[in-house]
């Protein structure tokens, strides 16, 4: 108990000065003059607006990735005391004094700086020499593209950091597996692997690829573990369970946690509300919640409602009607019923109000107690302002001739009778007698006579329909589609008997008391789904490129140009490293094939442990490159050079591994080995020279003359900005 009295407390510090030194130079390279340029650089304009939203706690929807990355950037803003007041509208705009540029850029820069010692650690944990490990770190240090990307408010460097952290902690786990499973450090590294993976996924969806890679390697190792007959069944089970919890359960929980924090932070309504469902909007402060707060929950006969289409495409809109009728003859010569138009209108309007009527009675007010409408009930919908009934009949719709026209019925005393009965079909019902609820219930209106379903076709009507959206009765109903589903958004119990009074009532805002809340999981699943399905228009960009351009660095991105001088920042890699890393990958693949074939014929060139090391290094580094690069060939979105940086980092890690392998196993004599080392040194100094030459474009600190800039344009396809008049 009192052991410390008998023995002195000893702290043995084991400091690897290499790591310290690498961290220091890493910090120096990434943090040097961090707040320069004091202007919006490239995609800062994009991330910056979200930082402002976080600062003002306004809800937004960004389909580009999960919220962790944005939140980390916003954390920088929070620590720097940013109030969110800056108009992010133009690349190159000068930051105003309230923007804490340094602290906003600090986090990505730190992540970028720490990647340097981590590269060292990874190669070391892969059981390669210190020399190789130093080589890897120094290569990461002088890679211009990584520096540029890390010094700005961008997310790639943070993503790379977590990717490397995941790989590193998994390697640490593997190595501690040998001498002490279930020890404290073992648990620490196992948990850290899971956490790092989930952070990587939380920053960009791209992180999934690294996560899958780590999972795959872990699965192979677990498989070997199962085959290890020296372990008891219980022990194997414990191992598997621990891994499952750390690598599957923890990431899921973490991912949910990110969204939880995100939703807690963003509690005010904002510009993207419209995309979300009514229920979601009602959970935000301001906006719809202000209107719907205190509405009655259950829709009853006599209720006044607005009906919003659930699909929300092309724009969110409400079922609408107005005095105007369909034109007698359309432009293409077809005829219409000439009855009152029914459309879907994307703005709030008094003409969006409808009254739910019992077909058996004449009154348009709610009884007391209210008689709720249930699933399967037959209702009529009365347009509030014109008191005409929603109707559909066997007349072709104006723009979708396969469907029926929907109108508000006018009795012209001609052959066409009113067909205005609709059966209410609650889609998300839990029981067959479910009551129709405001906001929560998603309903379909099935026409009783023709079994057509009220649907938003999505087409814009011509001028006679005021370019509102067409609503049709879908007859060839092939099952469920969101465009046929509607929900009640605004709702009040109608009290007025007379039409004049009712019109006044319709104009007045809804006021009553009842509050409701959406659970976190419901909000999460809706937000996640919208994020995955929101379509950003695939815009072409001047600096967009294809994955094939990346390997050979055939493209660059101009990030920023000084407003007066020709100082400029480019995303441009160190081409020596870039090309040699690609070469190393090819060499690795060829050597691996060669060894595999030879081993198949029972010729072992490598001793067993160095073979396993070689394979593991390949699986993590070459595999990391492949999983982060190849999927881009299947993606259809606009791609940029910076998408390649995570893959490149893994490729750089492979480079010293291959070099050491060549020197250890392929150089036969001492002479060859020395020669090879000399070559490597020469090659590295060449890389340093390239770094130094491209440095002005990386940091943007020096204004070069047009001649110098022209001299830097080593590839025809590099776009370096040269001012015409200087």
């Amino acid at each position, binding site marked *: 108990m009192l052991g410390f009295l008998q023995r002195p407390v000893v702290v043995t510090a084991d400091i690897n000065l290499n790591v310290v030194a690498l961290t220091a130079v890493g910090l120096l390279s990434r943090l040097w003059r961090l707040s320069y340029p004091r202007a919006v650089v490239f995609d800062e304009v994009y991330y910056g607006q979200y930082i402002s939203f976080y600062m003002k706690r306004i809800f937004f929807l960004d389909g580009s990735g999960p919220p962790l990355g944005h939140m980390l950037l916003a954390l920088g803003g929070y620590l720097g005391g940013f109030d969110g007041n800056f108009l992010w509208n133009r690349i190159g705009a000068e930051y105003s004094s309230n923007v804490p540029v340094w602290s906003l850029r600090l986090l990505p820069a730190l992540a970028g700086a720490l990647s340097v010692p981590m590269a060292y650690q990874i190669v070391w944990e892969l059981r390669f020499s210190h020399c190789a490990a130093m080589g890897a770190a120094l290569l990461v240090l002088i890679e211009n593209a990584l520096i540029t990307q890390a010094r700005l408010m961008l997310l790639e460097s943070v993503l790379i950091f977590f990717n490397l952290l995941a790989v590193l902690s998994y390697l640490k786990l593997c190595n501690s597996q040998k001498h002490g499973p279930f020890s404290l450090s073992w648990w620490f590294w196992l948990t850290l692997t899971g956490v790092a993976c989930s952070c990587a996924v939380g920053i960009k969806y791209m992180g999934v690829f690294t996560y899958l890679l780590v999972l795959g390697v872990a699965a192979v190792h677990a498989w070997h573990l*199962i085959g290890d007959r020296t372990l008891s*069944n219980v022990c194997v089970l414990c191992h598997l369970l621990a891994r499952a919890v750390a690598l599957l359960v923890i990431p899921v929980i973490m991912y949910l946690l990110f969204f939880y924090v995100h939703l807690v932070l963003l509690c005010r309504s904002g510009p993207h509300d419209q995309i979300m469902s009514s229920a979601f909007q009602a959970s935000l402060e301001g906006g719809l919640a202000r209107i719907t707060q205190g509405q009655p929950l259950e829709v009853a006969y006599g209720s006044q409602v607005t009906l919003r289409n659930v699909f929300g495409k092309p724009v969110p809109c409400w079922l609408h009607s107005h005095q105007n009728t369909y034109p007698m003859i359309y432009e293409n010569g077809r005829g219409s019923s000439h009855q009152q138009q029914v459309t879907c209108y994307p703005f709030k309007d008094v003409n969006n109000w409808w009254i739910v009527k019992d077909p058996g009675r004449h009154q348009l007010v709610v009884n007391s107690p209210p008689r709720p409408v249930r699933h399967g009930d037959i209702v009529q919908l009365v347009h509030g302002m014109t008191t005409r009934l929603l109707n559909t009949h066997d007349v072709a719709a104006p723009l979708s001739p396969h469907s029926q026209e929907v109108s508000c019925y006018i009795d012209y005393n001609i052959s066409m009778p009113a067909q205005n009965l609709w059966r209410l079909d609650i889609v998300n019902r839990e029981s067959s007698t479910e009551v129709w609820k405001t906001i929560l219930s998603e309903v379909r209106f099935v026409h009783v006579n023709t079994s057509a379903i009220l649907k938003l076709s999505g087409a814009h009507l011509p001028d006679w329909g005021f370019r509102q959206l067409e609503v049709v009765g879908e007859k060839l109903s*092939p*099952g469920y589609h969101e465009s046929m589903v509607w929900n009640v958004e605004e709702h009040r119990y109608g009290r007025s008997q007379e039409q004049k009074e009712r019109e006044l009532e319709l104009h007045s805002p809804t006021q009553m008391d009842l509050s409701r809340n959406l659970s976190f999981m419901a909000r999460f699943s809706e937000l996640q789904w919208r994020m995955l399905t929101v379509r950003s228009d695939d815009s072409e960009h*001047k600096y967009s490129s294809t994955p094939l351009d990346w390997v050979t660095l055939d493209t660059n991105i101009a990030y920023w140009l000084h407003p007066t001088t020709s100082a400029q920042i480019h995303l441009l890699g160190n081409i020596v490293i870039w090309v040699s890393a690609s070469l190393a990958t090819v060499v690795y693949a060829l050597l691996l094939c060669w060894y595999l074939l030879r081993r198949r*014929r*029972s010729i*072992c060139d490598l001793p067993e442990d160095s073979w396993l090391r070689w394979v593991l290094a390949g699986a993590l580094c070459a595999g990391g490159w492949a999983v982060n690069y190849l999927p881009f060939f299947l993606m259809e979105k606009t791609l940029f050079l910076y998408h390649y940086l995570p893959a490149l980092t893994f490729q750089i890690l492979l480079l010293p591994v291959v070099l050491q392998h060549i020197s250890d196993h392929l150089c036969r004599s001492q002479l060859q080995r020395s020669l090879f080392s000399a070559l490597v040194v020469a090659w590295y100094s060449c890389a340093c020279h390239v770094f130094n030459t491209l440095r002005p474009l990386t940091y943007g600190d020096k204004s070069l003359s047009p001649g110098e800039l022209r001299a830097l344009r080593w590839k025809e396809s590099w776009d370096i900005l040269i001012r015409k008049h200087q």
Partner: protein
Amino acid sequence: MLCATSRFLAATALRAQPRGRGPALRCRRRELHFPGHPEPPLCDFLTGQLGRPSVPAGRRAILRRGRMPPAVGGGLAGSELRARRGRCGSQAARAVSPDVAVEAAARSHKQPAPGSRHFEAAGRWALLALVTLLSFATRFHRLDEPQHICWDETHFGKMGSYYINRTFFFDVHPPLGKMLIGLAGYLSGYDGTFSFQKPGDKYEHHNYMGMRGFCASLGSLLVPFAYLTVLELSKSLPAALLTAALLTFDTGCLTLSQYILLDPILMFFIMAAMLSMVKYNSCADRPFSAPWWFWLSLTGINLAGALGVKFVGLFIIVQVGWNTISDLWHLFGDLSLSLVTVGKHLTARILCLIVLPLALYTATYAVHFMVLNKSGPGDGFFSSAFQARLSGNNLHNASIPEYLAYGSVITVKNLRMAIGYLHSHRHLYPEGIGARQQQVTTYLHKDYNNLWIIKKHNTNSDPLDPSFPVEFVRHGDIIRLEHKETSRNLHSHYHEAPLTRKHYQVTGYGINGTGDSNDFWRIEVVNRKFGNRIKVLRSRIRFIHLVTGCVLGSSGKVLPKWGWEQLEVTCTPYLKETLNSIWNVEDHINPKLPNISLDVLQPSFPEILLESHMVMIRGNNGLKPKDNEFTSKPWHWPINYQGLRFSGINDTDFRVYLLGNPVVWWLNLLSIALYLLSGSIIAVAMQRGARLPPEVEGVLWDTLLRLCAWSLASSSLARGIHTVGIMSLLLGAAYSFYLFHPLAYGMVGPLAQDPRSPMAGLRWLESWDF
């Protein structure tokens, strides 16, 4: 009848002695030891004779030579082998010796009496015949109904007619399937005169039965193929019979086989490839023998067939390829084979599985191009040079002026395939989309609206006036392009393009050729090979807008209805060189210039082949559902979520509804799940070093039933349970077919909601709308 046969089956199954590697396996299947269960006596004499009790050695033998395809035993085999052979050293050598022992034992094993073998062989043939007969009977039953076009018959029947009429057309699928349909029609006396306009049109006197019969017979052959495949894989007659029954009684397969579609042909080739692959796997112990070569090359031929019908045939190629690679990998690791032998194996596979299919596939295209030599509806999809081959096309044997001159009337075609000609028409861009000026699009078909007149930018005088000398257009000239029909100039300005927002809009502007400076374009020749003048068809040209500096191009996006679903034309400010912004001059009319013959342009066969593939790929990418079409999603398919109306909607129509037999389909799903479950349990158990009975290799249901039976009861009862289980599965499938057959054979009368309908009460899912 069925009952009797199956008892007979059970008998043959028990006595069956498959050739080759069979005996050891069969025997061990019987000697399976479950705790507390007496050993069945049947195999005693065999085990005695083999005198080698260890199970794993036998397994190894099977795995080593068996090369089970991945669907059944591959996973297990692979892991086993890796565990054994992954390490270097002498283990590999040791592993060889027991195999030899097994083989020797197998050979020395006494053959059964010849009489029973004859009987048994006859029984097998009879069964096969029965299965085939039943399959043909179900597929040909009421084949002639309905006597109108159903579903995609309108496309594939039409394309068959094109082959008979020899007119050129374009389709996104490779030609083999449609050629076979055409051939079947031709041989059965169909003359190609029916127009196949739309589903529901009556065939009347036209002979369509030949084409339907052809598809139906290929569809019927699926069943015996599947039967033989499973028999070969499992060596279990009940399992094979069950497969055949499930497939025969599946209404989905049945419906698809009854019409003029590509699917029965595709499925035929896929199943045939599968069967021949399995057959050749089982010949693996006799490499380079005649049957080995036969099955190997047959696999190749079927692969070519599958790919030649539809590109989804690629998947079977992937499967066969995977099987071949793992096969070669095992051979390569077999140290008893010399490298030369392995090389021979490799060469044989390259020859039969790569060279042969490619040659056949190319040959189908050669036939395709040879047969289709008349101009037809597909011309516009192809390049100018390609069209020159087609008789009836205006480029065929045509002669046009060689160099472009002012005053020439031309059509301008985009170099990117399947974009089409620069086009304009008397319709304006709608309100809100750029300036309200005349639309400019690209259009794939030949049309008068594709004609443009090339003029100097500064004079409006008629260059065709004979008093002026001919002046050629040169690289770098500033020109104006006037639309011939509407006399408007090609125009661009700083308005965003309708779909590609970052590009500028291109319009037709001006009256009678008088516009403004936004009508001026600089014409540039890319990679000038022919000097400064612009050569018809050969020169690749760009049009650069003088004022904004952008390049005329087509984004390839389809305009909405207001643009008649033609493709968007934009002026792109990004000067990257892509084919989208490069054009060539195709038609060229200038009375003042001498004509030259275009025969020099005839493309070579490889060029045609490449081009038609590019066009097909673009066409495939361009396929997208139209507004009023409802498509299903891939996850709908395996769960049988939704069917497809082949014909008829109302209760008076003759209705055919494509829907898989739900009993069969859901049983499939269950089987897959059970297989995955049992497979992973077995894999883990083996990795933990458990010894498993060889039983687990069998086909799922058969095995499961057997295992259940064995673990439950003594041998005679076990056999009984097994038989009853198999019989109930067979009868269940047959009964469900009886329930659902009106879907496939067609029904008239009230819809399913009505209790009088034959389908009343069978609408088990809301989404089935029959």
